[in-house]
C-alpha cells in the first residue's frame, strides 16, 4: 500500500457491507481504502507475522483478544463495531417455527452450521442450542461447514432442511427463509470488534475507524441487517 493508503484486514463475512462502506468513504474523502478479506484466524495470524494491515475487523472477539494479549493492536482504538443475530433458516418458502420444534421438524435431515468448535457462527450456534436444551438432540445431525456461507448454501440448495446462520446472511439469500430467531441471550453477544494495529495507527487509519463507527457507515451496515454497536 502506498503511504497514506489504509489497508483493512476484515473477516470475509463482512465483504458486502465493508465494500460499500469503503466506497462511500473513498468517495467522500478521497482516501484510498484497501480491503483484504479472509478467515479471521488467517488474518489474525498474519498480523502476528507482521502483516502491513492498518485496521483489523474480526468476526469474533477471541482472535482480537489474542492480538491484544500480544500487544499487537493499539488498545485505545479497539471497539465493538457491529453486532449480528443468529437465525434458523429453511429453504424458501417456509413457515415460521418454534425453536423447540426443531428436533421434530428436522427428522432425519441435517442441520447446517459452521464448524461448531472453530468458526464463530458455529460456536454461537452451538451455545444457543445448548442453552435452549436442544443441542444434545440435534448434535448428531449437525453438518458443519468451514464457514457460515457454505452452511447457508446447503440450506439454499435444499440439501439441509435447516441451518443456523447470521441474520445478515439470511436476509441476503432469497432462496432461504428465516423461520426462527435465536434469543440474544441464548449465546454470547455476536460482535465484530475492530481495532488499529499497533504501530500502524496512523491518523488516516484512525479517521477511517472513527468513520466506520459513525452514523454514516452505521446506516449502511444497518441496511444489511447488522446491529450497529458503536455509539
Amino acid at each position, binding site marked *: 500500500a502506498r503511504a497514506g493508503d489504509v489497508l483493512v484486514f476484515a473477516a470475509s463475512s463482512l465483504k458486502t457491507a465493508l465494500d460499500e462502506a469503503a466506497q462511500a468513504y473513498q468517495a467522500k474523502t478521497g482516501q484510498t481504502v484497501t480491503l483484504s478479506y479472509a478467515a479471521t484466524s488467517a488474518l*489474525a495470524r498474519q498480523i502476528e507475522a507482521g502483516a502491513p494491515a492498518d485496521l483489523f475487523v474480526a468476526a469474533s472477539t477471541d482472535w482480537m483478544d489474542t492480538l491484544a494479549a500480544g500487544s499487537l493492536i493499539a488498545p485505545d482504538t479497539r471497539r465493538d463495531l457491529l453486532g449480528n443475530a443468529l437465525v434458523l433458516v429453511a429453504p424458501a418458502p417456509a413457515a415460521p417455527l418454534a425453536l423447540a420444534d426443531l428436533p421434530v421438524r428436522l427428522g432425519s435431515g441435517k442441520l447446517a452450521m459452521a464448524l461448531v468448535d*472453530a468458526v464463530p457462527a458455529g460456536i454461537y450456534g452451538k451455545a444457543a442450542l445448548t442453552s435452549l436444551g436442544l443441542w444434545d438432540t440435534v448434535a448428531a445431525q449437525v453438518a458443519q461447514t468451514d464457514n457460515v456461507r457454505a452452511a447457508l448454501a446447503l440450506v439454499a*440448495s435444499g440439501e439441509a432442511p435447516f441451518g443456523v446462520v447470521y441474520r445478515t446472511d439470511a436476509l441476503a439469500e432469497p432462496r432461504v427463509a428465516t423461520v426462527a430467531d435465536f434469543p440474544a441471550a441464548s449465546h454470547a453477544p455476536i460482535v465484530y470488534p475492530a481495532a488499529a494495529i499497533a504501530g500502524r495507527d496512523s491518523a488516516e487509519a484512525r479517521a477511517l475507524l472513527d468513520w466506520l463507527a459513525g452514523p454514516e457507515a452505521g446506516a449502511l451496515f444497518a441496511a444489511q441487517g447488522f446491529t450497529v454497536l458503536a455509539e
Partner: protein
Amino acid sequence: MTGWLGPEEWAAVALSLRVAFWATLCTLPLGILTAHALARWRFPGKHLLNGIVHLPLILPPVVTGYLLLMTFGTRAPVGAALQELGIFLAFRWTGAALAAGIMAFPLMVRAIRLSIEAVDPRLEQAAATLGAPRAWVWATITLPLILPGILAGAILAFAKAMGEFGATITFVSNIPGQTQTLPSAIYAFLQVPGGESAALRLVAVSVAVAMAALILSEVLARRIAARVGGA
C-alpha cells in the same frame, strides 16, 4: 480425549484413509481410460475433455465443492437419479470420496498419460501380428508397461485425496465420524487461537500415513522397473 488422539480424531484418520483409498481405486479405471483417450485417440472435443479433466486443478476447491453440490445434491438431477439407484452421496463419506477423487483426477490422468505416451507402439504392433485383439494387447502389453505410471498416478491421487479439504467440506460438510476427514479436523483446530498443537498432532498422523504410502509405492515401483528392465 483419551491417549494421544481422541476417538473422534481416530475416526477422522480412519475416514481419511477410507476416503483416499476408495477415491483412488474408483477413479483409477476412469483415469486410465481418460489418459488413454488423451494419449492415443483423435476425436473432436479432445481439447475440451482435456480442459474438463484439468478443471478441478484450476478452480478454487470451494467452487468445485459448490458445483458438486449443484450436481450431486439430493435435489440436483444427477444426485436424485443416483439416489434412485441407491447411491447416496450427500453428507456421506462416499461424497467425500467423490470430491477427493475429482480433485485428484487431473493428477492421476497426467501421470498415466505420460506413461502411455512412452510405450513403444511397435511392441503393441508385434502383439497384434501374433493374433492378439486390441483389448488383449492392451491388457497384456500396454497395461503392464504403464504400471509405473499408474502407480505414480495412484499415489499422487492418494496423497491429494488425503489432503483434500475445500471441495470436500463444501460438498459433504464435516460430520464427525461420517464426513470429518483429517484435513477438516486440522482446519477446525487452526480456526481457534491456541489450536495449533492439536492440529500439529493430526498433521503428524497425516504425514505418517502418506509417507508410508509413498514408501510402499516406491518399493513397488522399483520391483516393477526391475521386472521390465530385464535380468
